């Protein structure tokens, strides 16, 4: 049934690349354009050159290939190519039961996997109309905010690394490792926690976690202040990011951006306030908003958000109620038929899932909305006309995670 290999040779096949006698300026890949946008992109004017940025490139935050059409140093046009990390998570989730979906969505946003694994949990609870014990809700908020700080610390480091600074990334990892070790003592894992369960969390707070948390709270955010002193007023860093990749309010809304890139343009849209879930309504924290929408504003926004997260953690630790951490669930969980759109605020934006259940123990359709997928779209209009070095700054400030984008 399958077509023999010789006739249909996939273009990723190395022979295709070798056989075509390509010179340095040959179009990449030599395929017939399928849409007018692709035709318009792949006809190279004089003096222009097509360069592959990625998929194996030091600063594309995962495996993303951007085909750049450059004229000297100036970027004329760019066409991101994705799919290198595509595992078919949505198809796998349809073929495993709701508990399997938790482990499958874990590695989606691997820098902050506590958020991506909460997708099936929140949607199932919404469909089941399940009442999660309050202690579990508070532990979830604690875990979310800790993971948010570690993800923001990494973001600041990657932004500086893409602009050439070496030190901030190591301070960032210093902070992240401390938090992630603490979460390991709570959840058992350091990167993909697999800690959320439908109806609660996997395990209660233990002594090891609380002692580390107490120790860390005394110097919380110390490394991040180190990063700030190195970067906030540094003229070179400011010149490289201020006024670069300016996103207007309308453009942000039209491109469906969410999270820091959207709040940097003045729209106070944060899912924790816009569509409150868990116990966020009972905690008071404010949403940092800036108005000039450039890379520098996005960077400063992340620094402000870390302070807010610390405030939340304080409140959560003070108001932590007692009680069970898991709700009672039948052994074979059959989610009642229905549709739910559950969203939560991840460090990169609004992480949402449109879950359709047909009454069986497996999700009928498990659509994952990844914020970086929509934020990365803005790179195309933002980088046209800029220099090659700017694409790094703009992409780093939008903070895409390829695991979530490629699903």
């Amino acid at each position, binding site marked *: 049934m399958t077509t023999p290999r010789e006739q249909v040779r996939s*273009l990723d096949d190395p022979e295709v690349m070798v056989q075509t006698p390509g010179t340095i300026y040959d179009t990449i890949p030599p395929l017939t354009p399928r849409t007018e946008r692709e035709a318009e992109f792949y006809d190279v004017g004089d003096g222009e050159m097509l360069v592959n940025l990625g998929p194996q490139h030091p600063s594309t935050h995962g495996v993303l290939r951007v085909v750049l059409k450059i004229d000297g140093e100036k970027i004329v046009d760019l066409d991101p190519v994705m799919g290198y990390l595509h595992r078919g998570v949505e198809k796998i989730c349809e073929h495993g039961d709701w508990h399997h979906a938790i482990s499958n969505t874990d590695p989606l946003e691997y820098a902050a996997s506590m958020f991506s694994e909460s997708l099936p949990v929140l949607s199932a609870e919404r469909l089941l109309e399940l009442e999660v014990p309050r202690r579990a809700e508070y532990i979830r908020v604690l875990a979310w905010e800790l993971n948010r700080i570690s993800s923001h610390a990494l973001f600041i480091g990657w932004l500086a690394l893409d602009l050439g600074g070496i030190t901030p990334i190591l301070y960032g990892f210093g902070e992240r490792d401390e938090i992630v070790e603490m979460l390991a003592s709570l959840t058992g894992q350091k990167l993909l926690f697999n800690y959320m369960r439908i109806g609660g969390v996997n395990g209660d707070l233990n002594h090891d976690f609380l002692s580390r948390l107490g120790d860390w709270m005394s110097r919380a955010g110390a490394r991040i202040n180190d990063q700030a002193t190195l970067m906030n007023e540094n003229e070179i860093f400011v010149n490289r990011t201020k006024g670069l990749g300016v996103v207007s309010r309308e453009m942000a809304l039209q491109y469906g951006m969410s999270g820091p890139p959207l709040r940097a343009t003045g729209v106070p849209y944060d899912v924790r306030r816009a569509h409150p879930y868990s116990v966020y309504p009972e905690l008071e924290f404010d949403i940092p908003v800036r108005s000039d929408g450039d890379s520098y504003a996005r960077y400063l926004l992340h620094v402000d958000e870390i302070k807010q997260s610390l405030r939340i953690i304080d409140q959560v630790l003070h108001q932590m109620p007692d009680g069970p951490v898991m709700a009672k669930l039948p052994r074979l969980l059959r989610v009642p038929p229905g549709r739910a*759109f559950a969203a939560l605020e991840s460090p990169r934006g609004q992480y949402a899932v449109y879950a359709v259940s*047909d009454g069986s123990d497996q999700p009928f359709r498990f659509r994952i909305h990844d914020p970086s997928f929509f934020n990365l779209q803005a790179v195309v209009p933002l980088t046209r006309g800029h220099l090659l070095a700017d694409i790094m700054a703009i992409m780093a400030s939008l903070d895409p995670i390829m695991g979530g984008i490629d699903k």
Partner: protein
Amino acid sequence: MLTTLDGRLGDRLVVPAEAMGDTIELVVRPRDLTDVMRTLRDDGALRFELLADLCGVDTGLTMQVVYHLWSPLSADWVRVIADGLSRDDPRVPSVVQLWPGAEWAEREAYDMFGIEFEGNRDLRRIYMPPDYLSFPLRKDFALADDASRGTGAGIRHAEQPVAPAEVRLAPVIRSSAGAGAVLGADGELLALAASATDEAPAVDSGEEPA
């Protein structure tokens, strides 16, 4: 918000707007999707500016394209379901003119379901390699090893458009107006009640296995 929606869009809704938890659901015919979306976005009282999500759904009988919108004025999401797309040639007008951000989401829906979005200048595969022939997220695309949910004859090569003997069809459009599907004992779709629009092909599910 429910009443304003009914007021503005009354005639073009297949089923009157319905609140489900924190979302308001509208079911719309594909052909008048564009102006429903335009009114939702531009109307002063609605102002659904942010396209939260756009995705395709294969309910086994019909294809759907589901849009989620957010507006600063309303506390609820709005879910617009363009239902009743035929499964072999699903076509929907694109919303790229209203939200340029929908371009990649539509590319993904095309790549996974084969839904054609008219008006999207760049409708090509986003994840799969360019020479990939089938659409993985459709219900008739059986994962190679999971025969129980796929067709009875074990591995079914994706390309063969063979109607599955007992594809587990259970589209659920549960709504108070009784438009939901009636489920058989073990998840078999017995009938799709009134809500299926006229184009939806009449499918009696008891077909002979191929």
